């Protein structure tokens, strides 16, 4: 099964051979994989949550190979009950997985929905090949984990777990994290017996109530449906830990300037009546006739920065709100009008990055996306790196949109420089390219590779500029003659790299 039809469209569901069978509205439960209509065709989707509405039962579905931001509540009518449904098999995840491992060739991410809820980004990283994950991979994936402490704990828990479970499943769980591990242990305690019969399951579902679900699963489900922000209505993409009571609100209000959040219109109106903020509460470090940049210290503006993080969490899946904002600086881009400086986007940056990252999180708010603001943000981050005299790179993992934006920025700049070298018939090294753009050599190399520009020819490595990129570059240049591209003017940056004393660097309170 895993190697068959589904190998082209993997991602959702475990590679294990699953119990299949027809389902009805009533029996369909959380964790099931069903075929659901999406954009005119049926797609495989995992049911993550179920709710009752006036118009009937609705299912929160995550579609195979679709980003979570496209998850949605689906009425029963869109689910194809003609086709068989794969049932989750929570009770014997280990055995099942072991059996499946050699078979599952191209399947990614076995989401053992109950056992391993993939609540955090770490939890869901598994080797794509289905073979034993290399330790380097897992290390890399764990680099993104905010605290090293947590990892130790995980390792410890895994040890315990391993002892308790079958001894010969060596590497499978190496990358599991906290929640998953805890849940696994809990699951074991609670349900030690082998698979229940379907009837039993349904019974359990009825009695226990299908709405109660694994806590960690909550963060897989969008909790805020609609946000009123400034003059815009936003539809959040991901879960964000706003006060739990807001989940019940149809509409959440966010003050455009101080980013405070309200579930109640009266409270929001009262707040607006009193709020005197008109621009981000920090120092302006860049201004041109189009945008301004403000630098804000997470330690000094804790409330504002927390609010910003909550807001951006709705649009950044990988953003961690686990820890406080103290060790970050926030560079906020705004546009001006007669009402004030409106938040357009921002990027955060560690005050001291051990890995040399110059951007931690980066976001353009949805209402300003696809307007070239992302490029300005990225350019600004590199301009700051230039002032610091460092080479910078964004923190990984990148989101899909992040990757595209960065690729575009890197490509445009590299092409421009390489064309210049080509004209002068000069040779260049990746190091030199990196220094010119304040990029890391690794980023330069991966961009060149992705654009298929590196060849080995007559015993020499060479960089080849593909014609279609040259043409596109010329087209862009042509277009810019009539409509100049917005760029950051480095001369307008009034900024010195901030320095922090030892006392300021201890993040604890």
């Amino acid at each position, binding site marked *: 099964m895993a190697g068959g039809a589904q190998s082209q469209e993997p991602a959702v569901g475990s590679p294990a051979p699953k119990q299949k069978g027809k389902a009805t509205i009533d029996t369909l439960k959380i964790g099931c994989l069903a075929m659901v209509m999406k954009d005119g065709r049926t797609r495989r989707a995992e049911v993550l949550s179920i709710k009752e509405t006036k118009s009937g039962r609705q299912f929160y579905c995550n579609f195979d190979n679709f980003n979570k931001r496209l998850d949605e509540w689906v009425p029963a009518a869109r689910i194809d009950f003609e086709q068989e449904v794969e049932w989750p098999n929570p009770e014997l995840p280990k055995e099942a997985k072991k059996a499946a491992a050699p078979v599952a060739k191209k399947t990614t991410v076995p989401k053992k929905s109950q056992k391993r809820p993939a609540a955090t980004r770490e939890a869901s990283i598994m080797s794509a090949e289905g073979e034993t994950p290399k330790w380097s991979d897992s290390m890399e994936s764990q680099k993104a984990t905010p605290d090293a402490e947590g990892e130790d704990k995980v390792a410890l828990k895994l040890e315990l777990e391993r002892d308790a479970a079958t001894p010969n499943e060596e590497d499978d769980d190496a990358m599991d994290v906290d929640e998953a591990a805890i849940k696994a242990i809990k699951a074991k305690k609670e349900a030690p017996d082998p698979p229940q019969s379907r009837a039993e399951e349904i019974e359990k579902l009825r009695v226990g109530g299908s709405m109660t679900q694994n806590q960690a699963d909550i963060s897989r489900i969008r909790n805020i449906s609609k946000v009123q922000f400034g003059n815009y209505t936003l539809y959040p993409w991901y879960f964000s830990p706003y006060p739990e009571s807001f989940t019940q609100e149809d509409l959440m209000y966010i003050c455009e300037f101080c980013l405070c959040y309200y579930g109640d219109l009266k409270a929001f109106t009262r707040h*607006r009546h009193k709020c005197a903020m008109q621009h981000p509460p920090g120092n302006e470090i860049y201004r041109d006739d189009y945008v301004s940049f403000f630098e804000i210290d997470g330690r000094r503006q804790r409330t504002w920065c927390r609010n910003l993080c909550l807001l951006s969490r709705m649009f950044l899946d990988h953003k961690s709100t686990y820890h406080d904002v103290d060790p970050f600086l926030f560079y906020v881009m705004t546009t001006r009008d007669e009402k004030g400086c409106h938040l357009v986007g921002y990027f955060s940056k560690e005050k001291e990055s051990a890995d040399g990252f110059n951007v931690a999180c980066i976001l353009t708010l949805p209402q300003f996306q696809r307007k070239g603001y992302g490029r300005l943000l990225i350019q600004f981050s590199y301009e700051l790196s230039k002032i610091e005299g460092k080479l910078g790179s964004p923190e990984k993992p990148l989101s899909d949109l992040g990757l595209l934006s960065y690729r575009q920025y890197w490509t445009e700049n590299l092409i421009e420089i390489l064309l210049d070298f080509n004209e002068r018939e000069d040779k260049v090294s990746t190091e030199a390219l990196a220094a010119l753009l304040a990029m890391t050599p690794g980023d330069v190399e991966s961009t060149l590779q992705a654009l298929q520009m590196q060849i080995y020819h007559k015993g020499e490595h060479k960089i080849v500029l593909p014609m279609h990129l040259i043409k596109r570059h010329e087209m862009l240049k042509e277009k810019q003659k009539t409509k100049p591209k917005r760029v950051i003017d480095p001369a307008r940056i009034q900024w010195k790299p901030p320095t922090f004393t030892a006392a300021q660097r201890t993040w604890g309170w």
Partner: protein
Amino acid sequence: MPPRHVRQRKLTKATLQQVLREDQIESAEYDSNQNHQHVETGVERHEENEYHLQAALASTGGGKDSEEIPAPPAEKTVDIDYDALYSLRFKKPATYIRVSYTVEEVTGCQYDMDSEDDTWLQAYNQGKSASQKLSEDDFEKIIEVFEDTTENHTPFAAVDNTLIPFETMSAQIKLRLPSKLLDIAEHVYGHWKDRKQASGNKSIQPGLKFEINKDDDDADPYVCFRRREVRQTRKTRARDVQSVDKLKKLRKELEEARQLVALTHSREVQKQAMMLNEKTIFDQRYKVKVAKTKLGIKGDDEDFINQKVRCSTTRIEIIADLKQPQKRKSEFPQPQRTAPGTQLRLPGRSDGRPLEADLIQLSERIAEKENMLQKEIEEKTQQHRRWNQGHVDLTRDPLSPANGHGPETGFRPATAQYQYLMTPPSSVTSESFDHPSPAQEKSESFAFRYSSPPEEEPRGQPAYRRRIGRGGRLWIDRRGMSSAIKNDENMSDRWKYDQDDEEEQPVYEMDPHDTNALRFRATIPFPPHFYPQHGRQDNRPRAPGPNPANSRAIAPVQNPAAPP
């Protein structure tokens, strides 16, 4: 990576690579030599394969119109009154904005009433007169006090379910809000209590979930912004002491700040009382006046004017005395109450008190300070001399003579022979010649007292002093030789006709009895053939006017001289 026939040379970061266009290389070769390896994207593995991302990546590589990743859209809101909600207008400052205020500081009252409060408030205000009504602002202020007090007094209220009684609250209200709200606060307390209990004794306003160190905190996605582990520093006695000291200092400073605030508060309260008293007095007077007019009583209205209270400190009296002796004449000898007329006529005295009387003049203050300073300096020099008494420098060729620091070695005026009376020598050796010391200014005033002929340039009074420099060389310092400099134009004149012939002496016409000339002659110590400007020892640019002090060192051997 597929196996290659040719072993490639390693590509390093520093490898210089040729840059070619695709059309500069054979296409077949280009295709065959391309590396088709997996590129690190930095996106998570399981997301890398996402349908829309792959489509978009493929499209950028292929040069077609780039495919976009679909995302839930954002819309312009139509059903809100944006201008009403965001009513403030923003004025862009000319310079880059620099602020450090926090959200809490610019959002006013931290409690925002919601619709539930609104319902209650409207019910409460129902049928009350406008003055009795509780405004939304006041309502919020009261609740804010309740919430703050709860948080401060019972931080674990949500756990142990304690509710602060109104008595405690009312004390806080008294402290923080105008007293008229106290009665209303009791009503609000009931409403607040209801809401508090409904919310499980947590904060009424929905707030974020922070860690409370329960075991399930870690798994709860709603718990956010956890503290970071503090890197444990080694605990030493010194660090403990340091911390204790810091705490003590902090405590002391806070205490001081508190006292300051308390004092300020009491001062303002007294001020208020005073103003109220004044107002009552005014009212009473008004009544008296009305009564007087009614009853036709004529008499002086002096009672209606605030009389000058006699200053208790004589110093202020004296200042007033010095400033306006003639005014004082009119005021002082007479009994205070009988001189309202004169007081009234003086401009700028609305209450009849001379303004200057209770003001300490700035100049007085400055003079006083100067005197103090002067005295201190003198004392210090005396002391210094006492220390150095009997000090003999036995080293060979002492750098500085031990004696010769007393005031007697200071500058002495060179005018003595030419003027009738001698000005007493200044008492202090001025260390810096650039600035006249206060002592010199003192001597001016003495000169004035002795009614010696007025000098056009009192500071330019020639003075000299003798001192022994390094290696026992004798120096004579002069200052106040301004008359010489006055001849600047003449000198430049002289240059014009200057010839190599040095014998020829220029002749200038001047009145031999002119004081300036006399004075000048007295200062000629040497024949004039050493010429001035170049040979001068101090290269300080010289102002054309009277220089307060200029000094020249004269070595016994070479004689740099003043201009003729």
